[in-house]
């Protein structure tokens, strides 16, 4: 079971412009996007670039995380650090992009956590070990489960192509 610290606590309606500002959109490759994650939050961006947070550290957010643009950089830049995003809910395109690129995200409508709190992800709940409270996880859309199981849309599509003999 994954255990990690909350390294960033965010509000509702965090747009893809906040996660990956438009001016860096000419950078597209998943290997190159992480350097610009949350670029307008200079301290957090620096901490990311200095690799201060171990894989499995968490970002906690409110409603509608990832709203706005379809830019996949917003998912790949977080995936680059193997952070987990826990939010009350996610905007559609961001959620689908995250599944496609293998970013782990958790829909947790009741989540309460602050920066520095330690969270443990169990099968169907998020346990805040610091506050000793736990919160139910809402399953990801069932339509997408097979893509998650395949490890992302690229291996999933590759397998389909082979099956169909395209």
């Amino acid at each position, binding site marked *: 079971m994954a255990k990690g610290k909350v390294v960033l606590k965010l509000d509702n309606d965090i747009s893809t*412009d906040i996660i990956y500002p438009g001016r860096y959109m000419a950078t597209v490759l998943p290997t190159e996007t992480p350097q610009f994650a949350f670029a307008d939050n200079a301290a957090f961006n620096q901490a990311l670039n200095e690799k201060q947070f171990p894989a499995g550290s968490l970002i906690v957010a409110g409603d509608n995380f990832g709203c*706005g643009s379809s830019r996949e950089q917003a998912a790949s830049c977080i995936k680059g650090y193997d952070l987990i995003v826990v939010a009350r809910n996610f905007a559609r395109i961001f959620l689908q992009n995250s599944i496609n690129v293998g970013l782990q995200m958790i829909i947790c409508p009741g989540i309460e956590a602050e920066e520095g709190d330690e969270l443990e992800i169990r099968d169907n709940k998020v346990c805040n070990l610091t506050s000793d409270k736990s919160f139910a996880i809402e399953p990801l859309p069932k339509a997408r489960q097979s893509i998650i199981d395949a490890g992302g849309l690229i291996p*999933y599509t590759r397998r389909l192509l082979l099956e169909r003999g395209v």
Partner: protein
Amino acid sequence: MGMTYVQKLLARACGRTGVETGEVLELPVHLAMSHENAALVINQFNEIFRGIGREVGREPRVWDPDRIAIIFDHRVPAESSKTATNQKKIRDFVAEQGISKFHDIRGDVGGICHQILPENGYVRPGQVLVGTDSHTTTHGALGAFAFGIGATEMAAVWALGSILNVEVPGTIKVVVDGEFPSGVYAKDLILHLVGQLTAEGANFKIIEFHGDAIRSLPTSGRLVLCNMSVEAGATAGVVPPDEETRRYLRDEAGVEDELDLFAPDADAMYDRVVEIDATRLEPQIACPHTVDNVKPIGEVKGRKVDQIVVGSCTNGRLDDIEIVARTLKGKQVAEGTRMLVFPASWRIYSDALNSGYLQDLIAAGAVVCNPGCGPCLGIHQGALGDNETALATTNRNFKGRMGNPGAEVFLCSPVVAAASALTGVISDPREMN
């Protein structure tokens, strides 16, 4: 049980008699659109085919080069060597694959993707249309089921010709009756609706537009409504097609083939019905830093504006430019305020030039730029300084949107932008002399 417009469209697309909300479908794609982010799509497309046992020298092929559209609009002409190199890679791929619907940086066929697709007749009622841009919802104005996807999702579409694992969304029916009062436009209606639904109120749902105010709205206004449906989180916005759709496609997009128009069933099931009386609408302003932070203009007027932006895929069409030019004709943009105008396509630019609108705008002190997306998302021209305020006819006002997290963006209709350009403060066009 009756079907909504999109349920009916999906049933037809899959060759079925009906589909249910929540059902998971693989949808055949009629048109797949990308802009400069095609550079990432190409990368992911090649990744899909990596190690798949292709013979050496046999490059992976897209499923149908005539069903892919690529339009350069986000950074045109290129602002950096990095962008220019990405555009060059895309151009090479377009040539290798024989992609026919390619709109390069050109003064004859160029422009913003969400204007290029309609004006070239690429969008038809009943289509399934996907684009690597969230404002792909725009094309619901012509009766397509059109939605934004990410680059990896698009790579899979290029490989397969279909979009996988689509859950049939529920639908919110929005009924708008009555006539728009003077000074009130489609932009005010959609800002009002986003404010009412909230930024996540339509997440994973379709917004289907009905009512006599929608029937009497020209396609240019319907494009505004569907364009900004995504600002309420909607998967897609859609206007069931009608005679106006036929007129637009025939007269403005050169479409000669027979169109197959259909309507939702009268007994279709909707998740929610929202009724709006257009006669009661006022000019609306979306205040920083979310699009649902909407206020009637009376609560915001008088606020100083440093930069006015008219244009974008939302409000850069000929009727938008026309109303701004007519408002500014023979007058001057206020000292201390700068005004930028970005037509949505070169066809519109050319029409505005021939109609004298661009001359009126320039004489008034506005800067007319080439068609493109740049200033809307702060990536190419028109960035804001620290603590500056912009008033824009674009679609988003998120923190940092116009290139500076220390600036503020307010959103409005073209006529409000024009009235405010003359005074240098947010101004109500109904109160102009």
